[in-house]
């Protein structure tokens, strides 16, 4: 309780006490989503056990001492931007929702409602006066990027374990999301390696694997076009599928490879949303039916586009 005594040493006692109330107290039982029967923490008896029996932020006192009132709006904006970046680099929906709730909680907003699917997040946070702040985010493009996800995860961990000031968290988030590089050599290498490996996995020869590599490079270059021009994703997928189908058949006609369908399946493994399908089933079984359904539909539509793209060269050269 050292921090609690420190509060009373500050010059502006009343302000400090009222802010302490903001961080320690919860709304009366029975109102706004808090079920009856759970005893809220009482101010005159400073307990470390808060709402739902969870420990209150350890550095809450430190925030008060710095005399920086935390704005509901800033906190919610920070949490939502964090959640948006997490969805964009491939986090599960349940994880994103939990992160937003925990970030809001860490800064003293104890009642937050959040709903998210892969393309939108909506959240409302209530402050101690019962005033609410609602924000939403729309997500258009996403690409799996675990490096970024790990950084975001580390940041959110720092927020709800160490309670770093919102401004610091904000600047760190901007730093993480600032990266604008378009071409990544290692990603390109990943395309080549996985396309060649899956050509062999499905029964192709080493010649087929070699021929799958240049097609994978073309697929990667085409996939970067989405970000450049905001091109329609479905059309681009069908187009790149058709191009790689023609190339695969061309390589076999030139005598460089043996089996066109093996080259095709190797390259398909890189672009087909198989992982998205697994994740959609996972989400539906976990209770995020809405998000899972959207993901399932999207993966089916994208694979239909891929199938259409490959059907063109296959049917022409039948």
């Amino acid at each position, binding site marked *: 309780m050292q921090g609690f005594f420190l509060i009373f040493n500050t010059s502006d006692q009343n302000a400090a006490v009222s802010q302490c109330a903001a961080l320690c107290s919860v709304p009366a039982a029975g109102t706004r*989503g*808090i*079920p009856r029967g759970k005893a809220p923490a009482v101010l005159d008896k400073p307990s470390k056990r808060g709402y*739902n*029996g*969870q420990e209150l932020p350890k550095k809450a006192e430190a925030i008060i001492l710095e005399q920086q009132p935390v704005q509901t709006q800033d906190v919610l904006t920070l949490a939502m931007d964090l959640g948006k970046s997490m969805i964009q680099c*491939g*986090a*599960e929906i349940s*994880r994103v*929702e939990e992160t937003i*709730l*925990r970030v809001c*909680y860490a800064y003293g907003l104890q009642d937050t409602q959040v709903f998210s699917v892969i393309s939108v997040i909506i959240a409302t946070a209530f402050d101690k006066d019962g005033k609410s702040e609602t924000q939403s985010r729309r997500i258009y493009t996403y690409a*799996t990027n*675990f*490096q970024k*996800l*790990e950084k975001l*995860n*580390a940041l959110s*961990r720092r927020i709800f374990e160490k309670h770093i000031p919102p401004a610091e968290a904000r600047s760190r988030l901007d730093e993480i999301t600032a990266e604008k590089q378009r071409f*990544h050599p*290692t*990603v390109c*290498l*990943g*395309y*080549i*390696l*996985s*396309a*060649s*490996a*899956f050509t*062999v*996995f*499905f029964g192709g020869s080493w010649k087929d694997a070699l021929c799958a590599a240049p097609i994978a490079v073309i697929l990667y270059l085409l996939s970067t076009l989405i970000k450049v021009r905001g091109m329609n994703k479905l059309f681009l997928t069908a187009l790149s599928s058709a191009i790689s189908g023609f190339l695969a058949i061309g390589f076999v006609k030139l005598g460089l490879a043996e089996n066109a369908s093996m080259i095709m*399946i190797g390259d*398909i*493994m890189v672009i*087909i*949303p*198989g*992982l998205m*399908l*697994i994740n959609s*089933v*996972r989400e539906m*079984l*976990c209770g995020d039916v809405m998000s899972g359904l959207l993901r399932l539909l999207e993966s*089916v539509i994208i*694979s*239909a586009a*891929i*199938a*259409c793209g*490959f*059907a063109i060269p296959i*049917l022409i050269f039948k």
Partner: protein
Amino acid sequence: MDWKQSLILFLSAVAGTLGFALLFRIRKRLVGWALLGGTLTVAVYIICIHFFEHAFFQNLLPALAATLFSELLARLTKSPATQYITCSIIPLVPGGALYYTMYYFVTGDMPQFRAALTQTARTAAGLAVGIICVSVFVHLLNFHKFKIDTETE
């Protein structure tokens, strides 16, 4: 399936895992761990195809193994388990089956379409159930830290 075929299958699957680990831009010092997870999963998978006929069970056990290993790794390296799970199950993901399903649908070959669809659905269900069986219990262990209010009023 003889041992030579199995070995080729194993090595190409591990190479594929490495490729996807790079494609998903996993942090460089974690690539080795992800590769280890992929190796384990493929090894379990190759054993499973000798014992089970049904695609659901062929994929359920590798997914269980992959998720257990990934959750352990996530605790050790303090990073999200998703990245390890994703990289580990990559060789089992029904990409080929999903493509053939849609291909037969587009070309109008209905008997083949039905067979491919069944295969895709069974594989996806097996993997998803395998992952969930483990992650539900891990979530239970984590749950005391932060409780989302899900009670109805």
